[in-house]
């Protein structure tokens, strides 16, 4: 059962591994070639990935996003647009990590336009990535693409507001009081389990909440864990 569950969780990895095994049986030369091809990307990845993650985490930590988020409403105008670009470009994690945060922002009054800007810039204009793009595709390529991408996002976020109304987003689901983790957002960074191991645990690749007694909660540790979560997946609702 657990083996089956593991396979299901890592379906893609298992499929790739199986393909390699089959390839090595049928055509060993091609198998070797594939490994060699992959080697190039692994080398490139190892050279850049550690530093990108560190840079992203530092930006995430030092840019005062809570303060910025107050200025993302409908009347924010150019300032709101600019700040939305900032939030998206300095945030950590893949785009699906941005979904829950943007839903929260919308509930707090951020406009649809600014949410779309955050989501799009989150995906395509990560600041640490710009130099990486310049390396592989040239400085001129990077600069031109960057300018056009920003322009495109400004235009299509404006078009979106003509089509989407606030009411089109799912209404507020009344959450039960207590502690919640949005597991779809979790990127398994294990910060919460390290900071408060009595309350949080990792089940598979996702953080989960152990059974807890409300009286014995250490609110300082809990608040730290909520703040530290890079994708804002932990939420505590008072009764």
């Amino acid at each position, binding site marked *: 059962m657990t083996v089956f569950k593991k396979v299901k969780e890592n379906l*893609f*990895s298992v499929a790739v*591994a199986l393909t390699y095994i089959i390839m090595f049986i049928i055509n060993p030369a091609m198998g070797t070639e594939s490994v060699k091809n992959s080697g190039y990307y692994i080398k490139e990845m190892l050279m850049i990935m550690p530093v990108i993650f*560190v*840079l992203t985490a530092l930006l995430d930590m030092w840019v005062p996003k809570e303060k910025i988020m107050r200025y993302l409403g409908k009347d924010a105008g150019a300032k709101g647009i600019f700040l939305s670009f900032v939030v998206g470009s300095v945030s950590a994690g893949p785009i699906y990590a941005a979904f829950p945060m943007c839903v929260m922002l919308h509930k707090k009054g951020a406009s649809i336009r600014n949410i779309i800007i955050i989501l799009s810039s989150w995906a*395509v204009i990560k600041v640490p990535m710009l130099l990486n793009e310049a390396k592989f595709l040239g400085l001129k390529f990077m600069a031109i693409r960057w300018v056009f991408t920003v322009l495109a996002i400004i235009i*299509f976020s404006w078009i979106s507001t003509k089509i989407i109304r606030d009411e089109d987003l799912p209404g507020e689901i009344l959450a039960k009081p207590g502690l919640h983790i949005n597991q779809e957002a979790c*990127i398994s*960074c294990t910060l919460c389990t390290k900071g408060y191991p009595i309350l949080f645990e990792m089940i598979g690749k996702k953080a989960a909440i152990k059974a807890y007694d409300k009286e014995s909660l250490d609110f300082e540790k809990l608040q730290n864990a909520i703040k530290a979560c890079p994708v804002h997946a932990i939420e505590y609702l008072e009764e």
Partner: protein
Amino acid sequence: MDVFTLAIWIGTFVFLGISFAKDKVKTKQALKMAFGMGKGMLSSILSIIFAIGLILTVFPPAEIANFVGKQSVLLATVVAALFGTITLVPAFIAFPLVGTLVGAGVGVVPSVAFLPTLTMVGVVTFPLEKKEFGVKFTTVRNGLSFLFAIIIALVMGVMM
């Protein structure tokens, strides 16, 4: 190591130094977060890389370039953008991949269309996004992103 990679490393170390001088606790937390993110993503990143290695063996970049070169630019661009939507690939794999393709002779226009849809639009993430934002929002956002990826690519093709 090339200039650009070196610049990121140096810049990050300077930033790290300043950060550490200002707030040790915060900096340690950032490092833990970075390490955790890396560990969490490593297995899926490795699978993607090995899959790319496989695909590039079956379809060598030179052949892809040759094939793309025979199609009309518009068709090649749309198809490239469509390929990009299948899955989400982290940017630090997407860039060297697109670099390989451009180096092998695939035109700039299809490559530029491939890049943003690779990192931004995902059939895989569609259900997730729909659940959070509703069908209309998700369709409009993904649709417009796709459309503008193609427009940017075509405009860049004219300029470069």
